[in-house]
């Protein structure tokens, strides 16, 4: 048998795995990430002289079905033209049959990394709202992401928020079957059971994420989280848009739909919302009281 040196083995390893991009305008720069279906590379677009991200079907899952799935993923992303979804530039097949597509290269960190650093609750909620808006856009166009989690959210260097990995996204009503897609811990109970899911499955995942991002949330926010991740899908927000709207109400100091507040709660909220006005009125009353008392002395 041929004897191979360590250098030869390393080279053969690279050439076996590396996509053959001959005939395309792209050249591999480095591997960025590897998922169940594909490998993502940073690539050089020699035509437009810019860096792009190239997702190539992983060698070990190469099959006509997997190839179709990668191309379907590219088409799904291409249909969802939104600032929170990275645009697809190009798609094709390598000489060995593996499907690929090129998309915008996002320079940044995942939400998991971002949240592990010291950020204010307000900042994290701002990001969460961007994620909700992106999911809401997909829901409005009839798509369910099915794998929303902190690792699939990227925060760009200028604060841009992207929802990534639409590999298991499906049109609503076409999500059931033998294949259970998603990540354990973020999947709704019906998704774990392999049932047909709707937008409320993404709402459940968003609820799990929101809970992890908020330490000691206020009661109304706790109620929003509880409603989002209710095990019973009919009790959840119907889609990410409804969740986002309730969260905005919370941030604006308005009454949230998920929380039934009492008189004291409503009063506290109103005082908190109109803090400046309440402060002015209180200062005025105190002044009046002092003047009154001064007059009597």
């Amino acid at each position, binding site marked *: *048998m*041929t*004897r*191979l040196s360590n*250098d*030869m*083995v*390393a*080279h*053969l*390893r*690279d*050439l*076996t*795995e590396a996509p*053959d991009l*001959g005939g395309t305008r792209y050249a591999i720069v480095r591997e960025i990430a*590897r998922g169940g279906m594909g490998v993502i590379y940073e690539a050089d677009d020699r035509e437009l002289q810019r860096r792009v991200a190239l997702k190539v079907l992983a*060698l*070990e*899952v*190469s*099959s*006509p*079905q*997997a*190839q179709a799935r990668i191309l379907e993923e590219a088409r799904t992303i291409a249909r969802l033209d939104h600032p929170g979804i990275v645009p697809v530039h190009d798609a094709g097949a390598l*000489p*060995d*049959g*593996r499907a690929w597509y090129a998309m915008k290269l996002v320079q940044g960190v995942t939400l998991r990394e971002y949240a592990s650093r010291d950020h204010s609750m307000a900042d994290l909620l701002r990001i969460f709202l961007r994620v909700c808006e992106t999911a809401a856009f997909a829901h409005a166009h009839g798509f369910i992401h099915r794998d929303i989690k902190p690792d699939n959210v990227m925060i760009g260097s200028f604060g841009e928020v992207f929802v990534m990995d639409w590999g298991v996204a499906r049109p609503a009503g076409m999500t059931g079957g033998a294949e259970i897609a998603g990540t354990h811990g973020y999947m709704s109970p019906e998704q774990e059971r392999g049932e047909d899911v709707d937008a409320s499955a993404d709402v459940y995942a968003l609820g799990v994420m929101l809970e992890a991002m908020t330490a000691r949330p206020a009661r109304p926010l706790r109620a929003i989280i509880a409603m989002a991740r209710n095990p019973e899908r009919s009790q959840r927000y119907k889609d990410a848009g409804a969740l986002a709207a309730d969260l905005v109400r919370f941030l604006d100091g308005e009454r949230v739909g998920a929380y039934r507040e009492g008189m004291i709660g409503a009063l506290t909220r109103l005082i908190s919302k109109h803090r400046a006005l309440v402060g002015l009125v209180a200062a005025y009353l105190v002044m009046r009281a002092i003047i009154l008392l001064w007059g009597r002395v």
Partner: protein
Amino acid sequence: MSPLFPTTRRSVVLALASDDREERTRAFDTLVSLYWRPLYKYGRIASTHSPADCEDTTQSFFARLLENDALSGYDPAKGGFRTFLRVLYDRHSANEVKAAGRLKRGGGQRQLEFADAEAEIAAEAPQTSTPEEYFHREWVRSVFALAVDRLREETERAGKQTQFAIFEDYDLDHAGKLSYRDLAARFAIAETSVTNHLAAMRKQFREIVLDILREATASEQEFRSEARALLGVEP
């Protein structure tokens, strides 16, 4: 899930139990080609056995695999075939009766190049890794070496010796560190032909590597896991 690349041979684990003698022989040959060197070297590093004892152990191990149907005990649900084989080897090594092992040497068996393997152990300084890591590294080497041999055979049969020679020169002898222009001059062909020949050889090589992995595994899941291990993702 059906593979994108056509699978020309089935798993050696299944083929070794085949009624077809030719298929059994071919499967056994693949098994020996893939594993004798990694197992021998692993045995030398993991034990205090002398080279001669390890030679006996390795020869008798494969002889017993063929005779005793030991691979039928393999259950993919319990782990990968590669690990199963290494554990079997450990067990065999511990139980081996040296005399019996020596009796099984020769007699129509494939001659293994133990002296070469011994020289490689000395040159490779395996003390930098555990015996299991060394076994894994040698297994990777064996898969690629077998793939190179098969590519050579296939290209010879198809009369494509020049294509293989270009692949050998560029991807083996120079590990990709040669210019296409130099290759074109060396083989007196156009640079575009070098590109095309290399692309074709690499495609064929990739298919052969995947074929070998399919042979060396018993399930789609194990195949994927081994492919990742081979390509350095999950060593």
